């Protein structure tokens, strides 16, 4: 591994002070991606900035309005072990609890998973389904964007020079709604998604009609994709409706053929996973009533 300088600032302002000094800079959160990328020469840097000494970046909690605010460097395990998070956002727990093994989840963060911008990242479709927004900061202030706008391509995200990802915000979920995330891998753990689907289903009070649905699919294009499932609105939450969503997911998918999966396989899985995730979401929506 090439030598680099290690910095552990205590405040965000201090982070900014280290940026724009001409040095190649990488941020260190859980390190489960970046340390390996540096070791294998897939990335290099002059300085590595450890964000874990900044309290607001490693904390998570619900704001008064019910928005969950997650520090970009907060470890996944702390997130999904929070019983309140489990109760309110099972769709987020689905994703957070299957990124890597336990050892990875002890360290890895949502922020790192997002910034790494892998098309197969487990957190992206789940967060898109939940309408998460990202808080991005720089010396000049902060801006917020919907999570789906963050991904520009494999390994490329919307951070501008000297910007860093500060927080992930998940708004309170609508009444009578349920969300779920599923991925397919050849093994049962420790694997990269061949295809994945994050969904949220919103029902009417009676629970017999779909008010709205969100579907996002992963590992089937250069970035996670939002699937247009507006056709589901007004329909009964049944197999027929879910099959429509599955078909929409399959046709939206534009996957590549690589050692992890084939084109036809991935399109097919996008549909299968979307239908299965919708069934789980339906179950959760009904339970929540």
């Amino acid at each position, binding site marked *: 591994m090439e030598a680099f300088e290690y910095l552990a600032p205590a405040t965000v302002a201090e982070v900014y002070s280290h940026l724009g000094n001409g040095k190649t800079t990488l941020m260190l959160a859980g390190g489960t991606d970046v340390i390996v990328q540096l070791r294998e020469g897939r990335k290099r840097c002059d300085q590595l900035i450890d964000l874990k000494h900044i309290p607001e970046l490693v904390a998570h909690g619900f704001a008064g309005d019910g928005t969950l605010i997650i520090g970009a460097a907060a470890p996944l395990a702390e997130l999904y072990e929070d019983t309140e998070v489990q109760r309110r956002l099972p769709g987020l727990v689905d994703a957070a609890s299957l990124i890597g093994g336990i050892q990875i989840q002890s360290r890895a963060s949502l922020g790192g998973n997002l910034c790494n911008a892998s098309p197969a990242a487990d957190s992206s479709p789940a967060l898109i389904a939940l309408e998460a927004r990202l808080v991005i900061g720089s010396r000049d202030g902060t801006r917020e964007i919907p999570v789906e706008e963050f991904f520009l391509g494999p390994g490329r995200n919307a951070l501008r020079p000297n910007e860093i990802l500060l927080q992930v915000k998940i708004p309170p979920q609508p009444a009578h709604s349920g969300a779920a995330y599923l991925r397919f891998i050849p*093994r049962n*753990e*420790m694997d*990269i998604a*061949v295809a994945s689907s994050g969904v949220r289903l919103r029902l009417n009070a009676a629970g017999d009609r779909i008010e709205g649905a969100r579907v996002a699919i992963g590992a089937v294009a250069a970035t996670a994709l939002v699937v247009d499932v507006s056709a589901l609105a007004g329909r009964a939450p049944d197999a027929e409706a879910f099959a429509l969503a599955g078909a929409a997911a399959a046709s939206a998918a534009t996957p590549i053929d690589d050692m992890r999966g084939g084109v036809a*396989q991935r399109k*097919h899985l996008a549909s299968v996973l979307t239908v299965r995730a919708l069934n789980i979401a339906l179950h959760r929506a009904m339970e929540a009533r």
Partner: protein
Amino acid sequence: MTTVEKPAYSVIGTRPVRPDGVEKVTGKAQYGADIRLSGMIFGRVLRSPHAHARILSIDTSAAEAHPGILAVLTYRDLPAAEDKMEELGESNINVKEASDNVLASDKVLYRGHAIAAVAAASPHVAEEALAKIKVEYEILPAVLDVRDAMREDAPLLNERRFTKSMGGVMSEKPSNIAAHNQFKGGDIDAAFADADVVIEREFTTSMVHQGYIEPQVSTASWNADGTLTIWTSTQGAFAVRGLVAEILRHPVSSIRVVPMEIGGGFGGKLPIYLDPVAALLSKKSGRPVKVSMSRTDVFEATGPTSGTHIRLKMAAKGDRITGVQAVLSYEAGAYPGSAVGAGAMCMLAPYNVENFQLDTYDVVVNRPKTAAYRAPGAPAAAFATESVVDEIARQLKIDPLEFRRKNASRQDTRNVMGVAFPRIGNEETLDAAINSPHYRAPIEGPNRGRGVASGFWFNGGMQSSVVAAVNTDGTINLVEGSTDIGGTRASLAMQLAETLGVAYETIRPVVVDTDSIGHNDVTGGSRTTFASGMAVFEAGMDIRRQMITRAAKLWSCTEDEVVYEDGGLRCLKDSTKELTFKELAAQSARTGGPIVGKASLIARGAGGAFATHIVDVEVDPDTGKVTILRYTAVQDVGTAIHPAYVEGQIQGGVVQGIGWALNEEYFYDESGRMVNSSFLDYRMPTALDVPNIDTIIVEVPNPGHPYGVRGVGEVPIVPPLAAIANAVADATGHRFTALPMSPRKVLEALDGLE
């Protein structure tokens, strides 16, 4: 447990804690990478980015000038080697090829082929210097697949290689086919002409890796007087000593190889890769040097097992298998020497087949030189045989195990070498499978199926040497030279305790270096508990004889008036005269000095081992994923010395077989680069991917061993490939003839996707 005519043992068959256990659960055990010598520095190896290229030049000047670099190495530092086969203990090597595989000279033959090495005080600095070595290549077309490599117009790995066959040269032109062989018996044409059923299928299996968790690592210290010590992770310290001596043209007596604890081998730690490199880096730098591989190096540059192509045609008449014709082509990797011969010799072993013709082709391709992997050659061959046997049984509407039972080989059945089997436990194993709770239980539910398959492995004998020194407190130090990969210290100590009638706890086994014991062949071929166990038995009998002599002296009677039994001695003509083992040991100083038992032998009578496996699977038709629901492995082990470690060997072999069947494979891109050289993308089973593996131990004692031991470690990996394919066929109606049966392949087949 089915047991046939087994004597009553006091130690054999119990489950004591292994002698090396505490050090291994407390992190104290010293594995290859754990050694730290004063002044030690770190070596790293530069590897080829190309699958096939001529090396035009290697410029190491910038690396030599890199701050902190203490030694740089290329093939120029290796002695020129002769291009001929050498016999080395149990292994045969072409020294030129072995040397070229350690550091490439004229050509690189696979991605990852070692080219140069450097040493520095920090491994990071060594890596910085590697980046500064400039190599000019003339890139050549690569050939990766065994069938492509066999074509007339295929790129040649070695323009001077012709096809050999049992010492003769068979081809007019140079070829990638290194060797052809044939096994023939009876009249296959007549058998096929007169058959009720004939089935012909083509099978392929992918190159897979042993997947031991500890990467190769070697530490060497070269002294000014030419003496060389190597601390390494190996299945055979004496083999390493011999190979290093050949490659470096250095006297064996000047080389001491210290076997560190080994983090798995499965056959993959029989060859050497780093030891000569560490030795020469040490010679050049004057420091002890530790050289280790990364996981990617392990995948790209150490011997996996062959990818294979097998065409098999089988005839049956009535309920009998009457004829088999097969052509087996195995990838040898960059240099000749696949296990295709063993595959052919094992594939029909479970059956009594009189008419057969098996042709084998050993083929070089631009992949790493293959190495042994647990029952080398047999699993892929059994995948073909057992799949077709299953299909024929179905066509004949005979239960697949009953069909195997009707056609089973037994004592005096002749195998494909024309050789008669000694006492074997094939039928007993099949009976135990037929009567097992698993097989008697129905399999129900949609997308579920059951499969069975049998398998055979020869097991090895070879050379072993042990010394057992009796201490005056009655305890015994057992000195052995067999690497302990999976509990052999325990199985050998137990056999000595049984022989002497003493407590297991009184025996302290130790595995020593090549200066401290006579030659021991590798821990491989499932030989250690069998062969070193035989040596341990003879060393024990040597101790008993010495004790009888001394007791006779003490009691002033003749030796034949003294009997040794139940760990003590007594005088036949005077019942007052009795001594326990411990009491007599205490008197050794007064009865002629230390009591030391010794034995050195070539173990004969290795009994072959048979296994039959039963597996239930569920196939998800929407994803193509195969889930193993239940697995039972039945195996004749001769005598289970330590049943827990016997079960462990079986369970481990089965799970490796599950990985081979379902997900493991080498993915190469067009340029010949392996694209899944990590534990993330080379998908070995995790704890969550497999159920508990039930074992049924059958004991048909091997008449060739004092305690009836048969090799255990290898045969468990032979049946799973076919057993799972047969189960998937039962569940889906689709028969898979290409491994792995990955979700993608299953889905594409079931849903007709493409």
